[in-house]
């Protein structure tokens, strides 16, 4: 399938949205980890990456819609695997929090969410292997 001009533009849009979200997320995190900001500013900074994430989500859905039927099936299977695994991770963490004192610096949600893309890419690799 030859990559058309429209597809190239879509891929670039997806890449730009992904990079922007990652950059603004880590910028917000760095700002929040430093002290000295007023609470209202801290809340604003914490919410700052949200529009970039929404941009990423829209670009992701557009990207999936532009894929061919097998690749869409692979995406569905990857998400079907990654979503319940992400739930497993979060509820186990929640129960472990009740069971023992987990150090917040290592086990907070700001660390755990980053596991989700790993589960998604693992799901993609697993599903893709099936059709090779």
């Amino acid at each position, binding site marked *: 399938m*030859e990559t058309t001009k429209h597809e190239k533009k879509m891929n670039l849009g997806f890449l730009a949205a992904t990079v922007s979200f990652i950059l603004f997320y880590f910028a917000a995190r760095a700002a929040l980890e430093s002290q000295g900001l007023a609470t209202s500013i801290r809340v604003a900074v914490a919410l700052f990456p949200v529009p970039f994430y929404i941009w990423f989500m829209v670009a992701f859905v557009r990207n999936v819609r532009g894929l061919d*039927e097998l690749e869409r099936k692979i995406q569905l299977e990857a998400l079907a695997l990654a979503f319940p695994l992400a739930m497993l991770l979060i509820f186990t963490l929640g129960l472990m929090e009740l069971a023992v004192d987990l150090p917040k610096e290592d086990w907070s949600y700001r660390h755990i969410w980053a596991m989700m893309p790993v589960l998604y890419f693992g799901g993609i690799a697993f599903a893709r292997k099936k059709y090779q």
Partner: protein
Amino acid sequence: MKNRLRTLRAERNWSQADLAEKLEVSRQTVNAIETEKYDPSLHLAFKTSLLFSKLIEEIFEFSEGETPSS
């Protein structure tokens, strides 16, 4: 699902990439259909039959009790 895609493609000296381009899918999709790991959608099956000027059942063979490949 068994199919004659590889034979029909070879008769025309087309590579998987050539066929993929004509069907507007990826080469991986053509490969997965040829190796019977993926059953195409009805839309893609019709597109394939039009491309080869053959009936769908002349390309894809369905046997009763068969489960989907994927």
